[in-house]
């Protein structure tokens, strides 16, 4: 069998920058990613950074294509090194074609070290350039953007506009030196590595967190309470900014227990509410997830995974919380778990989460991870206006306040009233309760209420997003994935099937709970060889599939070192299957 290699006919730019925390390499990367977007290209901007504010080793990288760009890659076209030792961690990403610009103000690369680097090294005093052009050495990251723009053949005016927009809320006294720093970097380079042909289209550049925020707004969110925790914090920051533009309150809560409790209170009172956190914070929310379930209070929860256990690797990615979220909440807690992968899914599924939560009166999780949530993606603009359905409240309530909030129904969904509504009095109760809400320990009612809540999961199943088949209908290998892993797979599909062969297709789960047994078994019924990729050590989806369908998957690729999946590694894995 012929070995598959990356398809060299696909025009791809892979750019990277390294520096210590505080040098602003994340901003340089965002600017490069944005500059591509403004040229009509798609870009994916990925960051690696330690959990500290100054020092340490940080990187930002941008993958750009005139078509789509969904994931970072290894082999670099351009590498800018701002810190003296920044190149050390990336030797396997440098080949003879890589253009390496080394910031000589940081020192020199020793002769014996130069031999380890496959590419030529171009020295450039970027700190000095920043100092001379703008009077501020801090603008070295802007010089780096200028250098990169020229190397990449990006249009100078468009890049300047990117900067003007980035600093639109800042004083002109700040913007002027920044533009000077950019121009100094742009002029310092004479050779263009790859001339870019602009594409005529308008797109957005969003982090996964921002897409979740957009989805929440489009879903009618009016209350978001949270406690800062990487990688979920971005949603709180995004929504906090929107408070004056939309009818929305964002509450920075006292802790995660308070955060979810505030949201449950707001939702009980009738507004669409959401909270979000990562592993440890979600652990603190556990009892309240159970509460939302038994009181049948709608709630949307962003579960933003990072590496655990405990504090783990706070700023790195993992998909190790699937079992945890399925099990979150004691007793038999009813919930939905949506697992968006692409930026568009982060938007769409968060929006849908609000409809599902309100209609079925239960907690709905949007489970994602650092990789998808903190990276910048490209989103084609869709319809910016969405309709929010009217709150479905019980009608014709008896005047003697005998309305039965927890009535047993065929669908499991009971009519709902909210405070402020005449004659809708009821008790939302963390105790098991009767039809009105009063506590009961009676055996028959205990079982009936539990069954009623469970029944909702069957009723709603038809509305859930089903597993999706990507690539050819029939393929030699079907790779199963969930959440952000689809980014790497979808970005690699063209390589894997180049020349029109049907080597690989992908089965992606945008929702894992309630488990879509029917949709999944239908998709895999004709599969020749099944394989699965997961960002955890124990194969959590693989085991769930086994438990729910009895289907055994023989080939797996798991990663649990904090790093996301790379095309290069996926291709190597497929080659040895």
């Amino acid at each position, binding site marked *: 069998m012929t070995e598959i290699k990356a398809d060299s006919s696909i025009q791809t730019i892979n750019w990277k920058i390294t520096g210590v925390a505080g040098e602003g390499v994340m901003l340089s990367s965002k600017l490069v990613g944005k500059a591509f977007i403004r040229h009509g290209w798609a870009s994916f901007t990925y960051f690696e950074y330690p959990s500290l504010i100054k020092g340490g080793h940080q990187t930002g990288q941008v993958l750009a294509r005139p078509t789509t760009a969904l994931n970072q890659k290894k082999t670099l076209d351009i590498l800018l090194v701002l810190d003296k030792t920044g190149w050390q961690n990336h030797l396997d990403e440098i080949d003879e074609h890589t253009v390496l610009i080394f910031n000589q103000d940081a020192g020199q690369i020793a002769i014996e070290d130069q031999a380890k680097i496959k590419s030529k090294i171009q020295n450039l005093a970027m700190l000095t350039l920043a100092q001379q052009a703008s009077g501020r050495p801090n603008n070295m990251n802007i010089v780096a953007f200028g250098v990169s723009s020229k190397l990449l053949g990006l249009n100078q005016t468009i890049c300047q506009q990117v900067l003007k927009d980035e600093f639109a809320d800042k004083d002109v006294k700040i913007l002027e030196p920044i533009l000077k720093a950019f121009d100094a970097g742009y002029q310092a380079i004479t050779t263009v590595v790859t001339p870019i042909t602009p594409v005529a289209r308008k797109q957005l550049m969003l982090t996964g967190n921002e897409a979740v925020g957009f989805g929440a707004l*489009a879903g009618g969110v009016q209350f978001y309470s949270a406690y800062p925790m990487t990688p979920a914090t971005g949603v709180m920051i995004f929504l906090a900014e929107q408070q004056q533009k939309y009818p929305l*309150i964002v509450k920075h809560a*006292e802790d995660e227990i308070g955060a979810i409790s505030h949201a*449950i209170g707001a939702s009980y009172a009738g507004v669409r509410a959401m909270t979000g956190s990562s592993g440890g914070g979600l652990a603190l929310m556990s009892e309240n997830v159970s509460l939302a379930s038994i009181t049948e209070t709608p709630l949307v929860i962003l579960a933003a995974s990072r590496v655990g256990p405990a504090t783990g690797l706070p700023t790195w990615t993992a998909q190790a919380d699937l079992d945890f979220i399925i099990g979150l909440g004691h007793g038999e807690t009813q919930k939905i778990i949506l697992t968006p992968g692409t930026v568009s899914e982060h938007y769409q599924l968060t929006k849908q989460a609000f409809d599902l939560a309100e209609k079925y009166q239960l907690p709905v999780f949007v489970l994602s991870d650092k990789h998808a949530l903190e990276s910048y993606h490209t989103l084609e603009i869709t319809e910016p206006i969405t309709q929010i359905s009217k709150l479905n409240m019980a009608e014709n309530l008896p005047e003697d306040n005998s309305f039965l909030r927890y009535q047993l129904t065929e669908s499991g969904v009971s009519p709902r009233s909210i405070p*402020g509504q005449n004659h809708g*009095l009821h*008790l*939302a*109760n*963390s105790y098991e309760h009767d039809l009105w809400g009063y506590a009961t320990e009676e055996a028959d009612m205990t079982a009936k209420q539990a069954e009623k809540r469970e029944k909702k999961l069957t009723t709603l199943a038809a509305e859930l997003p089903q597993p999706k088949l990507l690539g050819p209908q029939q393929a030699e290998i079907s790779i199963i994935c969930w959440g952000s892993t689809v980014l790497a797979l979808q970005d690699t599909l063209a390589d894997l099937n180049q020349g029109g062969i049907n080597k690989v297709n992908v089965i992606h789960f945008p929702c894992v709970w309630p488990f879509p047994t029917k949709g999944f078994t239908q998709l895999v019924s004709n599969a020749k060889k099944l394989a699965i990729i997961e960002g955890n050590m124990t194969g959590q989806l693989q085991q769930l599939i086994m438990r729910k369908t009895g289907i055994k998957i023989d080939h797996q690729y798991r990663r649990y070192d904090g790093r996301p999946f790379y095309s290069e590694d996926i291709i190597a894995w497929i080659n040895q299957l």
Partner: protein
Amino acid sequence: MSCHTLQSLASPIAPTWCPGCGDFLIFNSLRKAIIDLQLEEKDTVIVYGIGCSGNMADFNRVYGFHGLHGRGLPVAMGIKLANHKLKVIMIGGDGDVYGEGLQHLITAARGNHDLTLIVHNNSRYSLTTGQTSPTSKKGLKTKSTPLGAIEEPLNPLAVALVSKATFVARGYSVQVPQMVELFKQAILHPGFAMVDVLQLCPTFNQEMNHPWYAQRICTLDQTNHNPQDFGQALSKALEPEKLATGIFYQDKTSVAHHAQLPQLQQASLIEQRPTQVNLQPIINSFS
């Protein structure tokens, strides 16, 4: 539009408290306060913690939320932010509010959320059959502390005061007319109002019975107390020997949390529920 009456408040479930329990009188005083103030049925919400006090949830017919142990206050804050036209009252015990949920008490006070908190303070975990509580005395021997509790008791009034609660009062479960008045003042106060009620527990706290309290209780009014004087309020709260009742502190200039939010100046959050959302105004900064 109908206001709560004794009939409307009546639940089919009879109280399950022990004979002589202070909860009965607190319960009746709260009902009287609600009726006297003509609170609307539809606009009154009571949030209950878990404990003997929280069991009151079953004995009222109101919009109620019987939440988790310690976590009633943040639910109450959320309800009030979502619809500040509601009157939100929180019923909890000393274990619930001063133990498990102390962080939320401090938060509700610091944020001046417009809630009325009534704490049934009997210095015991009585629903779990009488363990030591945050307000129990040092050295107390209970089933969970057979060697004697080492912790100093928490001073809830002082905690509320230094956490910037704008209304802090103490009642005693035997002094019904005063309790009714304190509850009414607390409900009317525009901001966070806490009424700590010293409560008899004849089953699990026989030491702190009525004669024990009778030797220590005094009312603040008799001492010409000025509730607008924060320093005086704090020093009265810290008095070790006397257990004064009445309004320790009230900030007459209090502006509630929701009233400080620009989003809620024109209407409550629920009244602003969108029928349509247009993302266009914010899209441009992401393009």
